[in-house]
């Protein structure tokens, strides 16, 4: 059981949690993730680490509400406990002295990017960050990224900020205008990362992406998270989660990620009325709300 000590709703569909997990906090490294199970009937699912505090024994995670499991997690409050957290899992990011780094992130990828940029800076790299959000209302942690990066650019999908709507357009222009980049790191939605790889490919700049396929055990035992990289099958949980984005079979990744869309919708739709009923019972309403 891991207690939630802080909760913030960053933007309406993205939640930040700080939880007690001292042993994991002692060992966590940039690029690693944990597997959670919200309650006794919950599924196991991975979330990247957005930060950790060894002294206080806490972990930070942030996530997008996507389905039943993340919705259940978002329904927990400060003082509540998460049933299980296991980690730190996956291989840490290879933090070297690369030179000029372009870090690209969006939504839940913003979280893990913060500790990674910090670590890259400590190694003497120059880090330029490009973050993407749908619109102004979905933008968060701009200040955090600014405080750790040398330069930060924001790209908004509604075009309300500058001429770019997609981070890919920004990357292309940035590279075409002669900026030297030695390595790109991209975390976030699959389509964003795939786009980013398309933009960097013509310039032949190694682009590391953090993949988030469906997982079960997270320790290399089941093979659910297998991806194809350079024609070879890899397990994201033990061989990754970071891979060379130019070698990733994106189509396969997307299809595997969508394999349970029907079940996910079913579970979510059943949970909602059920949960409403429970809320009604908890608040001791005189008449039960009819939810069926």
């Amino acid at each position: 059981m891991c207690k939630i000590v802080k909760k913030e709703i960053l933007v309406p569909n993205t939640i930040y949690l700080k939880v007690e997990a001292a042993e994991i906090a002692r060992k966590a490294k940039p690029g690693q993730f944990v597997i959670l199970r919200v309650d006794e009937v919950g599924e196991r699912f991975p979330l990247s680490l957005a930060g950790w505090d060894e002294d206080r024994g806490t972990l930070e995670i942030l996530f997008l509400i996507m389905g039943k499991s993340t919705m259940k997690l978002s329904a927990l409050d400060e003082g509540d406990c998460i049933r299980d957290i296991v980690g730190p899992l996956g291989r840490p990011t290879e933090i070297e002295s690369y030179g000029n780094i372009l870090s690209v992130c969006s939504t839940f990828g913003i979280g893990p990017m913060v500790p990674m940029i910090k670590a890259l800076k400590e190694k003497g790299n120059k880090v330029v960050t490009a973050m993407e959000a749908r619109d102004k209302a979905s933008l968060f942690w701009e200040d955090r990224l600014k405080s750790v990066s040398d330069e930060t650019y924001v790209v908004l999908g509604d075009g309300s900020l500058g001429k770019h709507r997609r981070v890919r357009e920004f990357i292309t222009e940035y590279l075409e205008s002669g900026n030297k980049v030695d390595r790109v790191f991209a975390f976030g939605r699959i389509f964003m990362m795939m786009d980013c790889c398309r933009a960097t490919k013509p310039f032949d700049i190694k682009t590391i992406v953090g993949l988030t396929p469906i997982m079960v055990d997270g320790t290399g035992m089941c093979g659910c998270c297998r991806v194809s990289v350079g024609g070879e099958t890899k397990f994201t949980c033990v061989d990754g989660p970071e891979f060379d984005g130019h070698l990733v079979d994106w189509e396969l990744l997307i299809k595997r990620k969508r394999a349970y869309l029907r079940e996910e919708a079913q579970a979510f739709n059943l949970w909602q009325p059920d949960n409403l009923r429970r809320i009604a019972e908890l608040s001791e309403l005189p008449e039960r709300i009819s939810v069926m």
Partner: protein
Amino acid sequence: MAEKPKLNLNRVPIPKQTPEVRRRNFNEVALGYTDEQALEEASRCIDCKKAGCKDGCPVNIDIPEFIKAIRAGDMPEAARILKSKNSLPGICGRVCPQETQCEMTCNLAKKGGPIAIGRLERYVADWERDHPEIAEQQKERIRFNGKKVAVVGSGPAGLTCAADLAKLGYEVIIFEALHVAGGVLMYGIPEFRLPKVIVQSEVDYVKSLGVEIKLNHVIGKIATVDELLENGFDAVFLSPGAGAPVFLNIPGENLSGIYSANEFLTRTNLMKAYLFPEYDTPIQVGKRVAVFGAGNVAMDASRCALRLGAEEVYIIYRRSKVEMPARLEERENAEEEGVIFKLLTNPSRFLGDGRGRVRAVELHEMELGEPDESGRPRPIRKPGSEFIMEIDTAIPALGTRPNPIIPSTTKGLELTKWGTILTDEASGRTSKERVWCGGDMATGAATVISAMGAARRAATDIDKYLRGSTEWS
């Protein structure tokens, strides 16, 4: 001189759910002996002077004595005898391959009717679980000797080693990677063969000996073996289990709907996907399921698929019936339930539906040639025999390779060419001082009881070493 009693060679059959009923539910298949049946079976034991059965047991249970106690109606004594050598009798009575162990060396086996030792073991274990007050009375007072041992993994080997050492007075902490204790007994072996309440009650017994189990602890990640040794543990016993699944390595294998047996069984058993959407983890089975391989895991996967609602389930195996590695009993159970065996058949590729899901598999026929290095006849592909079989789900059940997490994070641990940890069979010692190993990580995939036997030998050696009666090398 007394008249020689006549040998009774009729084993008392164990009541089972009928195949038509059980193939659609997850309840236990074998229902266990009634008191009368157990007594009748126990009465067949001739109490030989030279009891062959004992030699066949990897953990040396005093089999004639516990059977004698059943016969005498002294169930507490029967339970005590069992528990003194085996901390997990309810599990072993259900999943041990007795036909190649105690029941094979039973002197009545030569005449064709060995005592049903496994069924009697199960009977005693179940009786004991129904009488918790007896276990409480029999609980021995343990004196801690001040030494501390870490056990990695809470499967059959880990639980056995932990229980043995706890009884000897050691402080034992088990580190388990998953969110429940039991390892393969929880995620692998299905509910209908080994109910999870049985596993949990035997795990509780091990805990009652003072063993602490830390769940959600992946050794190699949250702490390394070296850190355990530096931070107060006098010895480490490694039993991390089976590890990484082996796939077929044929085109199309990453399509959705193709599960490793490990994933299929983990979703079903550990995550209770058969209760979806009450439980959150989903599983997709469809109408036609193909399981590749013919070991016990393949039998478990195929029988789970039936219970999850599949209409046709095939076991596809490249050799013939004789070479099938599964226990005869499991094979018969699967056959009775309607699993279809397609022997001398091998897949060459999977075909997708264009949206990333598996739609069919291309198979070809095989014939058997000269024996290969495993001693079994080498299957050879028959040219021009390809055909397509439509399927909704495919489950390769081809065994596992060792998980690299521990070897890659531990200094000075020598490996075999198969990637398992080099381990001395008699003592369980590895090449690293104060580190022992047992179970699948030492031997490659094997049985629950052989892992327990190895764990028992390791526990004995750990005790000897920590008491200072033997040197490391």
